[in-house]
């Protein structure tokens, strides 16, 4: 039976069974009716050695193609400082669970407190929870939070300029939770203000969801939106690409009530879409309506400043079906990831990352437009590092051609439209090469 993950010798098993008054391992299952038991081995491969496991994944890995990435749409190719990976591998962080026993979990509690502090700074909000699954579910949770805070209101307005990936998840949660989702039309790439002003006056609107930036990469002007929401007793929810808040006007500055989004853009590897880290920040006034875990500062018996899970009485394990959410964990290790990232980068690094993305994206847009084969889909709208171009060329064929050269040439978002993104990871040569392939 000797196997590396099972320390039991035959002598151990015999002695342990004896203490239990049993004769064989089968006796441990004597209470399960025989017809319900599995009387065969699983139809699965036999054990692999580490050498074979590595070979197996090398082989599968070779079926993937790592590409030069000009795609965004919710997942971004940013630089990861090597320190972050090193800290995340520390097994004291990696192999612990939720910090229920605060006396031996100050490491986890402390970094979550730092995470909350940094996310509140980044979003310009007063408080943050300990993190959520991803940006899409965080946005859906914000919707449910608005509905819970709005008592009998159960309509949510969603900008049609929002990432469709977010809208799909919002729709699913809304359908089962009994929330009515109504889209606010988009006009020329931005959320229609007139349509918003018209729809928000309905008496059952609990919340309004808009994006920073929006799906087309456009940085929208939300001046006055928060006031209009509040006059109509609706909450303003902004779903954001975290990294861009290093420079863009924050949800807090726009007067939003809830800021959500994914922290993946804070250096987390794309990893085929997960894990990222959802964030949810809000005002102090709404803290008890906020879903998820929260860490607070306190002190121990000796007066030392310490940290502890707090406001737990609002959570699912106590409130059961009365809780705002069923979430009972957080994306802790990924919260540590973005905490260490932000500690290293600081405000200056975040600004520089955005400056480089801005420069690269505008250079790419400029060259594509100058080629005469592409136009900007929304030429008078400001963007940061992501934008949509239109062309009469065959986009599928162009993308295919680029793929053969190892380039992921953006995401097609319509018959004639392509969504492109440039981060600090792209060099001028790579951009020039892409332009060459798209316009030759």
């Amino acid at each position, binding site marked *: 039976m000797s196997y590396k993950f099972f320390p039991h010798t035959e002598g151990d098993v015999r002695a342990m069974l004896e203490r239990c008054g049993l004769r064989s391992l089968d006796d441990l299952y004597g209470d399960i009716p025989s017809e319900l038991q599995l009387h065969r081995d699983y139809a699965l491969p036999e054990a692999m050695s580490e050498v074979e496991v590595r070979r197996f994944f090398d082989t599968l890995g070779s079926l993937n193609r790592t590409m030069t990435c000009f795609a965004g749409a919710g997942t971004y190719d940013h630089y990861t400082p090597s320190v972050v990976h090193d800290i995340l591998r520390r097994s004291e962080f990696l192999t612990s669970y939720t910090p229920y026993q605060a006396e031996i979990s100050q490491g986890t509690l402390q970094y979550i407190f730092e995470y909350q502090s940094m996310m509140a700074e980044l979003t310009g909000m007063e408080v943050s929870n300990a993190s959520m699954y991803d940006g899409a579910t965080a946005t859906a949770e914000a919707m449910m939070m608005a509905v819970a805070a709005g008592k009998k209101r159960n309509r949510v307005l969603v900008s049609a300029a929002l990432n469709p990936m977010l809208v799909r998840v919002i729709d699913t949660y809304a359908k089962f939770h009994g929330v009515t989702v109504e889209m606010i039309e988009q006009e020329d790439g931005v959320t229609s203000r007139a349509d918003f002003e018209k729809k928000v006056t309905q008496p059952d609107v609990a919340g309004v969801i808009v994006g920073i930036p929006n799906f087309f990469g456009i940085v929208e002007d939300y001046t006055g939106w928060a006031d209009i929401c509040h006059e109509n007793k609706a909450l303003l929810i902004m779903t954001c690409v975290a990294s861009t808040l290093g420079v863009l006007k924050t949800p807090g500055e726009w007067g939003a009530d809830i800021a959500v989004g994914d922290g993946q853009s804070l250096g987390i590897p794309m990893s085929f879409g997960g894990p990222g880290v959802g964030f949810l920040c809000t005002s102090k006034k709404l803290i*008890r309506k906020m879903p998820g875990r929260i860490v607070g500062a306190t002190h121990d018996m000796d007066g030392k400043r310490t940290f502890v899970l707090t406001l*737990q*009485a*609002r959570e699912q394990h*106590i*409130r059961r079906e009365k809780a705002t959410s069923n979430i009972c964990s957080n994306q802790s290790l990924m919260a540590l990831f973005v905490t260490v990232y932000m500690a290293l980068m600081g405000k200056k690094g975040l600004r520089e990352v955005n400056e480089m993305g801005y420069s690269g994206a505008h250079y790419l847009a400029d060259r594509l437009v100058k080629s005469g084969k592409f136009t900007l889909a929304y030429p008078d709208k400001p963007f940061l590092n992501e934008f949509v171009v239109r062309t009469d060329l065959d986009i599928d064929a162009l993308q295919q051609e680029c793929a053969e050269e190892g380039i992921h040439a953006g995401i097609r978002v319509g018959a004639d439209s392509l969504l492109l993104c440039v981060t600090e990871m792209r060099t001028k040569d790579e951009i020039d090469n892409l332009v060459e392939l798209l316009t030759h």
Partner: protein
Amino acid sequence: MSKIIEGLYYSESHEYVRVEGEFGYIGITDYAQHELGNVVYVDMPEVDDEVEAGEDFGAVESVKAASDLISPVSGVVVEVNAALEDEPGLVNKDAFENWIIKVKLSDPGELDDLMTAETYKALIGE
């Protein structure tokens, strides 16, 4: 032993109503605050909200527990005890002095369905 006051109306979910004219002051009983432990938050409705007998109108939270507040009577909220916002622990100090909401009773007949001090005393086994 928990404090019980004569002349109030009591519910099975440990709320009381103190009636003054057409108004009722609703709070949780001394027994309830004792069971709950240190109260850290009282979730209260807003003035002008309607409450209905048997329906919850808020919640009281301690560190590791939460309990819905079930209204013993129907009516309209005319005042909430704002002092509890800053100092929810007042409920522990004196649950009967520190009522939670003041309601204009819409159906005083409902009071007949509630318990007297005597019956409530029996309920909590004291």
